[in-house]
């Protein structure tokens, strides 16, 4: 609201007042109901006096009369403008709002977390997560880093191996120095913990948003356990995961510096052991990392506007730009110059520079810089300087003489960084086809978090999740909004919803006497990519699981140029595999099923049959669902499920039907966030009521069948697999 007219008017009033001789402000001259000397027509609170016309949210309504600003009618700590239930102190967000947020920001909504978001509101939850304690606050507390936990798991599962060169526990030497292909398995176990949370290590995975962002970053700054050398050094991937998780709410420039120096990336994109040109041998520096650092990790192939669209007119602030022109952001010459910078790095402790088949170097650490092997252009008669993207600097620039920071700085200064990274993170978390304005808003924060800092990921993530495009439930009905769920995330969601825990007592690795100890507290599922078409840190190439520009063969998507990358990997056979895997898991890894129904065995006995080679050594339970079902059925939870065949005399409705309705209401909440359509519910209900195969002479089993089948059907339906 423009303050000027009010001031002018006030001035005039004073003049007139002075001139009238009767003293005081005359309100006969102008309409000013609240007597604040500001005419009603100019007053942003015409009925409440507010001389300063303060309007913090600039919406034309002054703060003193604006219900949306700082007001908190129900006093629940959530401002009315954010509060979906401004009159109810116990709620601030709807179930749907909560579910949508948790789907974007965690590895899957749980009922308790849904209830928490409902209670405190979406923004409060986001802030809570952004400020949550992490494994990186202290190196000696109980919240373990990925690497610490991976080492713990390795020793737990395989206690008799000499994990250190000096022996089993001689941990002042390097862990897994000699390499062992089982490390990938334990690294995956650690990954599961942080995604699924852990019953006895509750800190693991408590920082869901941080871990989810780290997972998104792992699909941008890709390294993979499928690499022939990293295959034997899974601990390197845990170390790398720590870099991503630690910097997830840090700064992107710091992140780039750390991954560039990591042994993991050095091995994956082969700048470890890269050395200066040797004209006599006819060798020159390897271009691998140099190229992908530019093309994939920072600025991409051509110039972008602030909104991520191609910059065709050399002005990043105007978009979209007309025409077909593309301005390439780098050339082959830039790659060659960059490759010279990326020399001189080696694994710490490597006995011979650049040795790659080595049991000497440290894979879970930074690399070290050895100037002797760094490019200096002396042999080729060059000047020891390189020019990248038009900036020239000395190859030995920087405190460590590596030129690495100077090189990354050049890329970092490029205006592509903000839109390139922002857009990527939005598409991993929220929606595949963000609006131009959404990308621009987030990129603006990337460029400057409000305090003059570029690359503040905490601010960027906050901006992504708090943006109206992400939060407004109206987005559910916007056709182009949303994304196909990654199969792995659909899987983790299922596990989290049904309170997954490790299946304790499975058989670890043989010791020297051939005995295998029983393992507790460790999730075991080494190769989810066998079943889900993808697995964390197991991308087949540095280009991740799917192409960012994948447009499915569908008229609507083609015509509107909409992408759906996650659909690229859910191909015909993968869909069968996913379906079958859910089917198999739900039929064999549910606690009540194991202990009371089919197997009638103890969990321990059941676990003993499993080992590091078993898939999903994990346990879920339908306890809550069985309770809800039985309560509606016979009013108690004593597990007799009586009344299964009876009809309620009061309303003539079969108890079984009531139980099914109660179940569906619950599953709608916890699996779909109350987005189940009426038709969907009607069909599912009809099936559950009528399908003969669900019936059993054992009422407990019948209830279980109904629950399991519902969960299976929901999990494999498009309603579940599409995130809106």
């Amino acid at each position, binding site marked *: 609201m423009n303050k000027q007219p009010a001031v002018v008017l006030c001035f005039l009033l004073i003049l007139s007042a002075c001139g009238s001789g009767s003293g005081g402000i005359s309100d006969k001259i102008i309409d000013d109901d609240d007597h604040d000397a500001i005419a009603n027509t100019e007053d942003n609170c015409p009925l409440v006096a507010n001389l300063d016309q303060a309007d913090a949210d600039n919406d034309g309504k002054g703060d003193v009369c604006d219900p949306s600003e700082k007001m908190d009618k129900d006093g629940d700590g959530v401002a009315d403008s954010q509060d979906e239930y401004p009159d109810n102190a116990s709620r601030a967000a709807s179930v749907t709002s909560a579910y949508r947020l948790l789907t974007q920001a965690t590895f899957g909504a749980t009922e308790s977390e849904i209830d928490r978001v409902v209670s405190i509101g979406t923004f409060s939850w986001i802030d809570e997560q952004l400020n949550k304690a992490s494994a990186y606050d202290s190196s000696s507390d109980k919240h373990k880093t990925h690497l610490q936990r991976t080492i713990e798991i390795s020793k737990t599962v395989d206690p008799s191996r000499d994990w250190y060169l000096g022996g089993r526990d001689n941990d002042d030497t390097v862990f897994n120095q000699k390499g062992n292909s089982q490390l990938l398995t334990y690294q995956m176990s650690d990954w599961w913990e942080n995604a699924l949370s852990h019953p006895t290590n509750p800190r693991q995975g408590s920082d869901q948003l941080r871990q989810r962002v780290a997972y998104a970053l792992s699909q941008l700054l890709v390294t993979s356990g499928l690499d022939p050398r990293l295959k034997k050094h899974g601990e390197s991937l845990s170390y790398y995961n720590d870099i991503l998780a630690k910097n997830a709410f840090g700064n992107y420039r710091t992140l780039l510096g750390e991954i560039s120096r990591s042994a993991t990336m050095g091995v994956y994109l082969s700048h470890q052991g890269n050395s200066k040109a040797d004209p006599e041998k006819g060798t020159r520096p390897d271009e691998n990392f140099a190229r992908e650092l530019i093309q994939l990790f920072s600025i991409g192939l051509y110039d972008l506007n602030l909104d991520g669209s191609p910059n065709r007119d050399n002005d990043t602030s105007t978009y979209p730009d007309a025409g077909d022109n*593309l301005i390439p952001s780098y*050339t082959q010459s830039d790659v060659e110059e960059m490759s010279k910078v990326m020399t001189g790095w080696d694994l710490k402790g490597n006995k011979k520079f650049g040795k790659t088949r080595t049991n000497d170097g440290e894979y879970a650490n930074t690399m070290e810089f050895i100037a002797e092997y760094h490019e200096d252009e002396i042999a080729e008669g060059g000047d020891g300087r390189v020019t990248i993207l038009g900036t020239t600097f000395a190859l030995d620039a920087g405190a460590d003489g590596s030129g690495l920071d100077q090189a990354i700085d050049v890329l970092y200064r490029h205006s592509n960084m903000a839109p390139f990274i922002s857009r990527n993170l939005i598409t991993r978390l929220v929606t595949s086809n963000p609006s131009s304005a959404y990308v621009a808003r987030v990129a603006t924060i990337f460029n400057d978090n409000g305090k003059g800092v570029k690359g503040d990921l905490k601010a960027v993530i906050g901006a992504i999740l708090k943006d109206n495009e992400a939060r407004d439930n109206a987005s559910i009905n916007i056709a182009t909004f949303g994304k196909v769920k990654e199969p792995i995330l659909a899987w983790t969601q299922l596990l989290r919803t049904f309170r997954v825990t490790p299946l304790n007592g499975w058989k670890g690795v043989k010791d020297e006497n051939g005995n295998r100890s029983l393992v507790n507290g460790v999730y075991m599922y080494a190769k989810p990519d066998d079943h889900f078409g993808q697995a964390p840190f197991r991308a087949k190439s540095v280009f991740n699981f799917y192409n960012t520009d994948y447009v499915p063969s*569908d008229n609507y998507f083609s015509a509107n140029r909409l992408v759906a990358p996650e659909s690229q990997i859910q191909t015909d056979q993968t869909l069968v595999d996913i379906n079958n895997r859910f089917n198999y898991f739900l039929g064999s890894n549910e606690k009540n099923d194991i202990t009371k129904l089919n197997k009638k065995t103890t969990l321990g006995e059941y676990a003993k049959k499993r080992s590091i080679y078993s898939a999903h050594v994990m346990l879920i339970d339908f306890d809550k669902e069985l309770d809800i079902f039985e309560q509606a059925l016979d009013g108690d939870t004593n597990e007799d499920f009586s009344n299964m065949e009876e009809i309620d005399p009061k309303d003539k409705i079969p108890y079984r039907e009531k139980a099914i309705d109660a179940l569906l209401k619950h599953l709608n909440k916890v699996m779909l966030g109350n987005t189940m359509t009426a038709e969907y519910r009607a*069909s599912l209900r009809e099936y559950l009521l009528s399908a003969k195969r669900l019936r059993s002479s054992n009422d407990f089993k019948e209830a279980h069948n109904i629950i399991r089948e519902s969960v299976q059907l929901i999990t494999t339906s498009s309603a579940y697999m599409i995130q809106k």
Partner: protein
Amino acid sequence: MKSSTDKERRRFIKLLASGGAAGALGSMGQLALMSEATAANPEFSGYKAMVAVFFLGGNDSFNMFIPSDVSSYATYKAGRGNLAIQRKDLGLASIANDIKNGTLGKGAANLYNVNGQQETAYTKGFYDLAASNGFPVGVNGLMPELAQLITDKQASVIANVGNLVSPVTRAQIKDKSADLPLFLFAHNHQQRALQTGQGDNLNDIGWAGKIADAWAGVNNSSPLGLNISYSGNNRMLIGDSTSPLVLKPGKVPFYRGMRKDHNLGEDDRRAIFKSLSGIASEASSSTLNFNNTAFTDSNPFKRLYGNMIDRSMTSFDTLSATLEENSINYSSKGPYGEDLFANVEAADIGFSQGLSGSFTRQLEGVAQMIDLGAKDAFNTGNYKRQIFFVTMGGFDTHNNQATRHSALLREISLGLWKFQTAMQELGHEKKVTTFSMSDFGRSISVNSGGGTDHAWGGHHFVMGGAGDRSAGNLNGGKMFGNLPDLTLDGPDDYSKKGRMIPSTAQDQINATICEWFGVDQSLISKIFPNVSNFETTPGNLSSAFLEDLFV
């Protein structure tokens, strides 16, 4: 540094019809492209299959096929240094019968063996085919089976092939008048150019996808369609209205608990499953009936997913039923006496580690699908055409090339032999043409990590036929195209590092094979619009094809 020339800028202008690039490569899908589709469904007399083998990452084919004459070899050796294959004939003739009879010597008995190390086996020598075949290149010692295929005239080599828009010379590169493909040396873009069939348009759909679009209704509208991939949803096979069936090697699965016409309970399950994803239900024996149209979701994402599920279910209904009734037991053995498609052991090949076996497994799947198609086990009444896509990964050998490439070469050779043997045993060898592609060849110069970098031209092979050079079949045992001068900074070098300027475009090979496959010329010129730039007789499209590749 924006030193784009006019020519390069014109290249970029051809990119993207309008704004809204969704990513580095922009989005695809010009629905109007196939508006004047050629005749919907040509009549084919017999069954034919194309098998595209893509080496992901850029295969160093200059170490697969090594110049054997003294002076060419010297040039090669000067550039390659320690990574050069030694000029030493290992003597293919001595093991020819062993390969065929499955009695190939194991372990140290392998001709390429030095000390049980694959790195040294990599460079030990090659199979000289000059005397027997007039072949100017030898085949890497780790690939005796491929050498034998060439000798038996069931495979040919095309020299110095690469992604090209028009012919390019070094002089043109130097004066910046060359019509270069977009984003040379970048993996995903070079792969993409080979998928779209256009070095100057990375936003189009795939060329095999366009064939499928044009041949709508092929194979009597079998749900399996024209294109089958064993390696993911690859753009080469994606059309505007068609997309490939994507399978994995190994046992073909079925939807658990939802097999078609299996029993009442499973039918019920199918009905509800489809209904919940908005898929129209089939007339089935299901006792339950859901009104699917009630919630055909207007949400395009849900509809997309529903269609994906529908297609998957229909395909696997067909496949698993057919496969149950048609299993294959090969009597032929592999070179070491193993079951034909079994993976060889490390001890057999004399390596410290075994081979991944992924390539062989994919080809086993292809062989089975070819057999089913050729016999029309799907009972379509007119099953005549199939394009298969398989890949091998790991070729981006920036370092440790001797270790990594050796395993890959051994696997290529064994895989190709097993597949060709299977085709012969099943009687389909004249129906199938297999050909290679890769992002690019690699630099002749070597880097400090014992590897090579992204380059351009490289050699490729084509395999098929009965080895008799009969009409309509592969002209096997020949070298096509022109061997490049491998001198660093020499007349065929893009720059100074030994990145060879290709003299044959991949489009030319692909067009020639498509012609054999029955794609008519007007469709060929649509799917490979740049191939006419290679006409030796202007206006005569055939003159751009590889003359004599097929007899």
